[in-house]
C-alpha cells in the first residue's frame, strides 16, 4: 500500500471553519491561531474513528463556552438555554461532520464510526473517560482555532498498530 498523505493543519482548519460556518446560525468568526503557547485546559472532548486504508481518530476539544456556542448555533437557541444532552448531541454531530470531511481525504475504502463525546468536565493532562483505549494513537496534525479568545483544537491521531 502506498504511503497515505496526512491532511495538513491548514486543511483541517479549513474544514472545521467551513463546518462551523455552515451548521451554526450566527457562527461568528473562527480564526486559525498559529501557536497556543500553553496547552489550555479543555472541558469538552469529542472524537470519531476512521478505519480502512488509514486508521486513527479525529478529536475535537474545546472550552464549555465554545461547546455551548456550537450547540446553541445548531439548535437555534441561546447558549444559556442549552441542556447537557443537547451539548453532547451537537458537539458529537459537529465532530461527525468534521471527521467525515477529513475521512474523505484518505484513500477509500475508509469507514467512519459513530461519534463519541468522551468528556464533559475539566481535564488537562489525563485522557478523559472513553479514550482510555486510544493510548496507542499518536498525534499527526493539529489545528488550533480560537473563537472569542477561547480554543477549539482539532487533532488527527494515527493508530499504526
Amino acid at each position, binding site marked *: 500500500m502506498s504511503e497515505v498523505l496526512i491532511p495538513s493543519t491548514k486543511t483541517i482548519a479549513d474544514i472545521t471553519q467551513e*463546518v462551523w460556518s455552515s451548521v451554526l446560525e450566527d457562527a461568528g468568526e473562527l480564526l486559525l491561531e498559529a501557536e497556543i503557547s500553553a496547552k489550555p485546559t479543555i472541558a469538552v472532548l469529542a472524537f470519531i474513528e476512521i478505519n480502512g486504508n488509514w486508521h486513527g481518530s479525529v478529536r475535537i476539544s474545546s472550552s464549555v463556552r465554545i461547546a455551548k456556542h456550537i450547540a446553541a448555533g445548531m439548535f437555534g437557541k441561546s447558549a444559556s438555554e442549552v441542556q447537557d444532552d443537547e451539548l453532547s448531541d451537537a458537539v458529537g454531530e459537529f465532530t*461527525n461532520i468534521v471527521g*467525515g470531511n477529513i475521512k474523505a481525504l484518505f484513500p477509500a475504502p475508509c469507514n*467512519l464510526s*459513530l461519534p463519541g463525546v468522551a468528556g464533559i468536565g475539566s481535564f488537562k493532562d489525563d485522557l478523559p473517560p472513553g479514550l482510555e483505549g486510544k493510548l496507542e494513537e499518536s498525534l499527526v496534525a493539529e489545528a488550533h482555532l480560537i473563537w472569542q479568545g477561547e480554543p477549539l483544537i482539532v487533532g488527527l491521531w494515527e493508530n499504526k498498530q
Partner: protein
Amino acid sequence: MKVLVVDDSKAMRMIVTRSLRQIGIADLVLEEAGTGMEAIKVVEGFTPDLILADWNMPGMTGYELFLELKAMGYNGQYGFITTEASEEMKVKAAEAGASCFVTKPFTPEILTKALDGMI
C-alpha cells in the same frame, strides 16, 4: 409536501428541518425520527412524500432503512444527508433508487439544488 427527517442527532434534525423551511417548500409538513425503527413506525402512519435520512446511524443505517422501507412497499422519494460522501456509497445509494445524496455540511442552496424536481 410531507417530509420525514431521520437522523440520530437531534441537532442535525433541527438543521435539516430549518433548511427545509428556509427553502420554502409548499404545504410542508414535517416529521422526525431518531432511529431507523422509529422511522418505520412514523412511515406507517405518516406516508411521507420524501424521506431524508442520515447514512451512519446506530442500529439500522439509513441505507438499511431504505431497503427495509422499499420491501414494505414505500414508493416515495428517498434521499441521504450524510457525512459519508464516498463514491462507493453514492453509487450504492443511486443503485438502490435514492433520489438525492447531500453531503454535510450543506447550505439551503445546496439542499434546494439536490431536491430539484422533487419539491
